[in-house]
Structure formats: structure tokens, C-alpha cells
């Protein structure tokens, strides 16, 4: 991996869970499983000299740090910057727990390399707060009880935020489609629909 960073083009549009497999390389799967197979080559490990300097704009603040090119945005947020509101659920682009906004659109931060996120505007669940005050979508999730264990919730909230920025008055079916890339094993979906609907109303009301 070269030290020079090429301006990488990001694909347009959001990512859906079930449509994603085609773009996950086999190498990524093997690396995640950690199963040793006889005769398999051990990968070259990035040495500190090969680390890349990036400047990431997260929730309105610039963070400058050295990253390995293979580090995901999720890893950098959680393990390097201790911004842990963004959760790790599968780390392979299937569950949506790690959803953040990149330039206002919901993206899986586990499927986004930190080096590709440079030059974009990244918003995490913490970035929806105004000081200590909750944002509109966050308030709607509280009032409608749109979660149980709360682990997928930051991702759900970011997906809802992104949906409402793109479509301020989503229909029921548009909410179901817009939120279908975020899994909730507690099954709070009925209340999540209520919360997204309520948040859309509140946002129209001026907040």
C-alpha cells in the first residue's frame, strides 16, 4: 500500500444488507474468521512506517491520526478515538449497528475504510446532540420506546436521520425500506416505525 492517498471515489447511494454480499471480497471473509488453513500464506503485516496520515471530520471536529490502510472507519471511531456510540455488530456490512452519516447519507462504517472517509463529513449518534440535548430523532426514539437493549439503536437512529434528511415525509413503505438495512433482534420494529413517523412530524414542526 502506498503512502500517497489517491482520491477515492465513493459509490453512490446507500448500502442494503442483503444486496451487499457481492461486493465483499473473499479475502475479507477469511481474515475475519481467523481460521488457519494448512499451506495458507500468512499475510504481510503493515509496519508502522506504512501507516497513513488522515484527517477525519467527525461531528464538526477534525481528528488527525495515523491509520493502517486496512482500518475501517468503525475501528478508528471506536478503538482509536473512543467515540463508542457507534456499535460493532457484525463488522461485515450486514447488521447496520455501525451506521453513521457520511455527507448526510447513512453508511455502514464497518464497510468504509478510514482512508476513504477522509474529505467527507462524518456524523455519529453523538453528533446529533446539541450540547446535552437530544436531537429530534433521538427524542422520538425515547418517547415511542423504539428500542429494547439499545445496542442497534445508534445505527437505527442514524438510518432514520439519513432517511428523513433525504425524504422529510416518508410513507410507511418508504420507512420500512429505508430502515430495512438495520437489524433489531429485540424486534422493536413496530415502535421504530412509530418513532420515525413522529420524528418526521417534529422536524416539520420546526426542530
Amino acid at each position, binding site marked *: 500500500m502506498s503512502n500517497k492517498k489517491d482520491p477515492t471515489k465513493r459509490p453512490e447511494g446507500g448500502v442494503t*444488507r*442483503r444486496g*451487499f*454480499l457481492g461486493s465483499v471480497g473473499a479475502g475479507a471473509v477469511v481474515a*475475519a*474468521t*481467523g*481460521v*488457519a*488453513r*494448512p499451506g495458507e500464506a*500468512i*499475510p504481510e*503485516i503493515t509496519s508502522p512506517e506504512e501507516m497513513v496520515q488522515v484527517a477525519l471530520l467527525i461531528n464538526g471536529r477534525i481528528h488527525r491520526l495515523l491509520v493502517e490502510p486496512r*482500518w475501517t472507519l468503525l475501528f478508528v471511531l471506536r*478503538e482509536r478515538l473512543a467515540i*463508542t*456510540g*457507534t*456499535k*460493532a*455488530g*457484525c*463488522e*461485515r456490512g*450486514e*447488521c447496520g449497528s455501525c451506521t453513521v452519516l457520511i455527507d448526510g447519507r447513512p453508511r455502514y462504517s464497518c464497510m468504509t475504510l478510514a482512508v476513504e472517509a477522509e474529505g467527507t463529513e462524518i456524523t455519529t*449518534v*453523538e453528533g446529533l*446532540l446539541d450540547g446535552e440535548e*437530544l436531537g429530534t430523532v*433521538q427524542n422520538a*426514539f*425515547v*418517547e415511542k*420506546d423504539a*428500542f*429494547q*437493549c*439499545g*445496542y442497534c*439503536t*445508534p445505527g437505527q437512529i442514524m438510518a432514520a436521520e439519513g432517511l428523513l434528511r433525504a425524504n422529510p415525509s416518508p410513507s*410507511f413503505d418508504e*420507512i420500512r*425500506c429505508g*430502515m*430495512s*438495512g*438495520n*437489524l*433489531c*433482534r*429485540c*424486534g*422493536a*420494529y*413496530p*415502535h421504530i*416505525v412509530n418513532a420515525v413517523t413522529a420524528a418526521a412530524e417534529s422536524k416539520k414542526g420546526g426542530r
Partner: protein
Amino acid sequence: MDQESPYWIDGSVPETPGTGEYPDPWKKTEIIGTRVPRVDAYERVSGTAVYPHDVSLPEMLHGAILRCPHAHATVLKIETSKAEKMPGVRAVLTGNSPGADMPWYPRRGTFYGRLFDTNCRYEGEEVAVVAAETPLQAFDALRAIEVEYEVLPFVIDDEAALEPSAPAVHEGGNVVGEPRVRERGDVETGFAEADVVVERTYRTKCEIHAPMEPHGSVARWEGNKLTIWDTTQGVFSVQEAVARAMGLPLANVRVIGHYMGGGFGSKLEVGKYTVYAALMAKMTGRPVKIFLPREDCFLATGNRPGNTMTVKIGAKNDGTLTAIDYRSLGSSGAYAYGADSSTLAAYLYTCPNLRTEDTTVYINAGKARPMRAPGFPQGAWALEQAMDELAQKLGADPVELRLKNIAGVFQTDGGIPFTSNQLAECLRKGAMEFGWSEMRARDKTGGHLRRGVGVAACFWGYAGGPPSTVIVKLYSDGSVNLNMGASDIGTGTKTWAAMIVAEELGVAVNAIQIEYADTATTQYATSSGGSKTVPSDSPAVRAAAYAVKVQLMRMAAEQLKVDVSDLEFRDLTISSRSDEEKKVAVTALEKLDRQGVVIGTGYRDPNPEDMVTFPFGAQFCEVEVNTRTGEVRLLRFLGAHDSGRVLNRLTYDNQVFGGIVMGVGLGMTEERVLDPQTGKMVNANFHDYMIPTMKDVAIEHTCVPIDIPDNEFNTTGTKGLGEPATIPTAAAIANAVCDAIGIRVTDTPLNPIQLARLIAEQQKEA
């Protein structure tokens, strides 16, 4: 009593003393029963809640686990020298490492394996562990460990495991224990008396819990004291298991489990990862964090076993049941677990003649663990479809057939009374709100989109009880601390606990600060599982608040110079009933000001003797089947549950809907697929193992609580809800599909692949 020792209790359970002073049932409530947003909602939606997966400590290392890639193999040799030299690697742990050779798993005083077993009985059995500076370095190092395996023959099919020639998962054959047989009356006589008999074999597929937070722990030593942050349903059970496995005093093991991202039963048991983290933290002198990759969670953190169930029911023409014969086969996976499914069939309906037989076999796959109402959704899939078929044969309404046969008593030991059984109300009120009769009477002809409605009923076989100890502290400024050991696994435990204290003391819900789920700072509670946290712990919370109130009343009587019996307590003010002038705010009590705090200790009172308690429920659904594609749209779902008194209507609704959503997974989308050629799981990810998304669940959900307090059972009148909410769901869907197109789907998942085939067969026959 035909109740096993409760599965959520791991090891010994201390008894709690009774106080002798229990409050009377609530007559009227102001906060209880209303819709109150969660007290920890801010933390959960703002990202400030620290889950165990978020814990990061100074100098912390990251661990990763190497697992056997074969369904069955013997480890001949492990070579770790290359891995040890990899960048960032600080320790490698195998069964040969000092202190790592220990028996496992410490459940109820018995061990079923070893921490590292050279005989790997399933794909995912642990072989070695690495601790490194970063998670990626740890995973890199795993790939440098060279393991020589002798690959062995395996068995992954329940029925094949019973064959004498099947590979033995353990010495002594593949049947786990003895088949469990239950007999009442005489089934042969019962079937001879029957006018109508139905018999069919049903199958459910193996389901994975798949909570959104992966399994894992962080371990840190300070001298000989071990602190563990664990994503668990019960901190005290982890404390006991870790202490027992590692030979440590209980007092030296502190387990903290504040927030946790879902468990559904898979986090009732301690994981090997917790002990690995503790061992490696000891080896390196640094904290160690081990969280499992998602694939490992699919392979090695439990499952709801699949069951094959043959059920035969006989009835008179008037619908009276005369006999039930129920046989079930399920798998425990590679280590012992009871895959029984017959309890629902044995007790839901009155039937004088019954025989049930449950057989569990070992197979070369991940070990089963309790999963949300273990055995019951499987049993409902069989029993409640059989009841539906029986209604068809009798020409009876499925709701009426169930109403006719509701069990009046728990049919064992000659019949034990229930403290409450509102199943009839669940069925009647549910049917009314759903518009059941109108839907049944509709015109059933139509094009390729066919609608149908279905119903299924249930009870859940555990109720909770002692022990539970809770402490409430009220400070001189009127603010309150609540201290309880139970975990809040997403069910809203903290919120209803605060609501109970607020109800008793008249303080605001948000004036109560809660300390919970920490073995060092909170009182003992059993794990949060089995739908028993509310009925076990809520009476203790109420007793603790009541104990505070009693002390405050005595202080007020002294200060106002009136008799305690003349005083009433309302909104933190104590006043005389006979003299309006005489009243005092709690914050103005002189003795409280001097004393600083009032401490109330509450214990869970014992359950009533010679009675049993179960929650009951009924669910209704409407489907639209596309007969061209086999697709099923869930239009409506309604859950009518008898869980005693409703504490928080907001989280109650959420719990009912969540149970239904999980039931949709069992019924329509989920199935662990093992490759017959290799024995390996081929869908160990969320792409191929499909838990329901928002698009898979019903368009409309309705919750109809049968909000009748069970005051015979405990002082809050509550019963459990989490498990019953998922028991009848899958069966109700299958019954609705049968109503729509006349096809009885006997196997889960009821997906378009299966249904399109069944529709094609139906059309061929016609």
C-alpha cells in the same frame, strides 16, 4: 411438581429471609400501568451508555480465539512459535499453557468438557487464544498458528445420530440421558373413546439467538482481585462460574454487567472467552478484552435446537379432548442440554389421557442453550397446528375449541390450582379486538392473493420466586437510591423498578438513581431469564420501598405526636387523617435530617404453597398468500397476554411485539444450515441466516393486555411476559396460511421456497 429445576439458575441459590411485613395489593395506582419512557433512554439513544463491547482500559490487550474448522476432529499438534513472534502479540494460550487445563463447563456443579479439549466435537470448538496489542494483530496471529488435526467422521442429523452405526459424539452413545416420559391416564383408552383423531409430524429448524452485541468480556486483575465486564444476563451466575472454574474465592471476582446488547438466553451461561480473558490478563499483567466475531457467535454461543415432533390428538364430536400422544426428538449439539418440547402439549389443555416422550441426542454441532421459552415455540408449532387441524375436522371454530378445553388446574399430582389463568379472556378479548368471527365468516373465494386468519395459544412454564433482595435508600432531601442485582437486558427492568418506588413513595421517577447488575455493589439476584425478573424482583422492590415508608411514618408519628395508624403517606408528605393541621413533608422530618438517610431492605416473599403460576397468552394473525409465488405477507398480528398486572404499558407493548417479531423469525425466515458433506455451518452470517428485518414483520401490530393482577402470587400481582410473547407466533402464522390456501405447512421456515413447492403439489393433485 412436574417442574424441573429452573434453567436460569446456575449453581446454588441463597434463600432470602422473609420480613413478615408485606404491603397489601395495590387498589389504585397512579404511575404503575401508565406509559413511562425508560429511565435509561437518554444513555441508550445518545451513545453515552457504555456496553461491555465499548469498555476500553489503559494498557488493554485484545484477544482472539482459534476454533476448530472441522465438525469433528482430534488436535494432534499445535505449533504456536510463529504466532508468538508476530507483531504486537503478547501471549498465546493453549491447553498446554500453565493453569489452562481445567474442566468445563461449571453448570450446576457438573462439568461437561474441558476448557481446551483436544477432541473437537463441533466446528467452532476452541483450540488456542492469542492476546495482542490490537484486535487485527490478534487475528493475524491466529492465522500463523499451525494445527495438525485428525479429521473424524461426524453426525449432524438428529435421526441419524440414533443409528447404532452413527459416529459417537461422546462415549456411551448419542442419546443424552434417558428419554423423558410423562404419562397420565391411558392414551389407548383415550383414543378408543375419540370420535375424531388427528396425527401428523412437525419439524422446527435450529435457530440462533443472534443478539446484536456479540459475546465477550473484558478482564482486569488488581492483585488477587479479578474484575470482569461481561455482556451477560446475570452477573452473579458469571461470578459463580468463573470463581468455580478458576478456583477463586467468590469475593475476589467482581462482575459488572450494566448495559448489554441482548441475550435471549445465550448470555445466561458463562463463556469460555471470559476465562480466557482472565487467564491471559494474568499471564500478561494487563487487562484483556475478548469479543467474538459474528461468525463465532453463530457457531459457538448456543442455539434453539430443531425438533421433530409427532403429535396425535383424539376428541369427541363435541370437541372434548380424550387423548394426546406426543413424541419429540431434538439435539443438544455437542454437549449436554435437554431439547425437550412437550411441556406445552402436556398442560395447556384439559386431557385425561396423555403420553409424552422427549428424546435428546448429541450431534457434531454447537451446543444448544436456552432460547426465549426453550422448547415451547417448538411445542406450539406442533400442538397448536394439531388443534387447528382438529377444529377443521370437527367443523369447530379454532377459538371455541380452545375455550372448551382450557385447563382448569395444572394437571399433575391430581391437579394443582393456578393462582390465575386468564387464557379464556386472552382468547375472547383477543378474538373480539381482532374481528375474528367476521374474518372467519368472510367470502373465501378469490384470485391469486388469498387471505387467511390464524390463532394459537400458550402458557409459559416458569413463574419466578425467591430469592431477591433489594435496597432502597431515601436521603434527607427526598432523593432516592435503588440498589438491585438484576440485569436490565432491554426489558425495562430499571424503569419498572423506579416506577414501583415512585408509586410507593410519591417521588418522581427521575428522582431515583439506580445501582444494578454489579456483584460488588448490589444485592444478589438470579439471572434475567425465564420471564421471571418482574415477578421475582418487583415484589422485593416494593417491599424495600414499603420498608422505607414504614420508617418514615414512625418518624412522622413521633414528630407530630399522633398514632401511626392515624397517618397517611402521599406524595412525600405524611398527614393525619383526623387533624388536617397535622402534616409534615418527609424532607422536614427532624429525625431524617439527623440520620441523613432511611434504608429499606426488601425481600421476595415466598410463592404460595400448593398452587402454581404461569403466564398465558393467545395470538391472532392475518396473512395474504400469493399462490403464484408462495410469498406470505403478514398483514396483522395481535397479542393478547395474561401476564398479571401491567407495570409499564409502553415497554409491555414493546415486549409483546418483540416476541412476535422473533416468532416470525422461527416461523418464516430462520434456519441454521449445516453442510451434509462437511458438517460445517454454511450460513454463519446475517446475510444468509436471516433474522427478520423491518420488511419481514407484520404491517400492523396490536397489543391487548389482559391486565388482571394475580394477587395470589405476589405483592405486585405480576407474572412474566418475555417468553410467552414468542411462543404462539409461528403456529398462528401456519394456521393462517392453512386458512388461506388449505395447505398445512409442517416444517419451518414457512418461506416462499417451501410454500411454492407445496402449492405446486396441491395444484398437481387437483
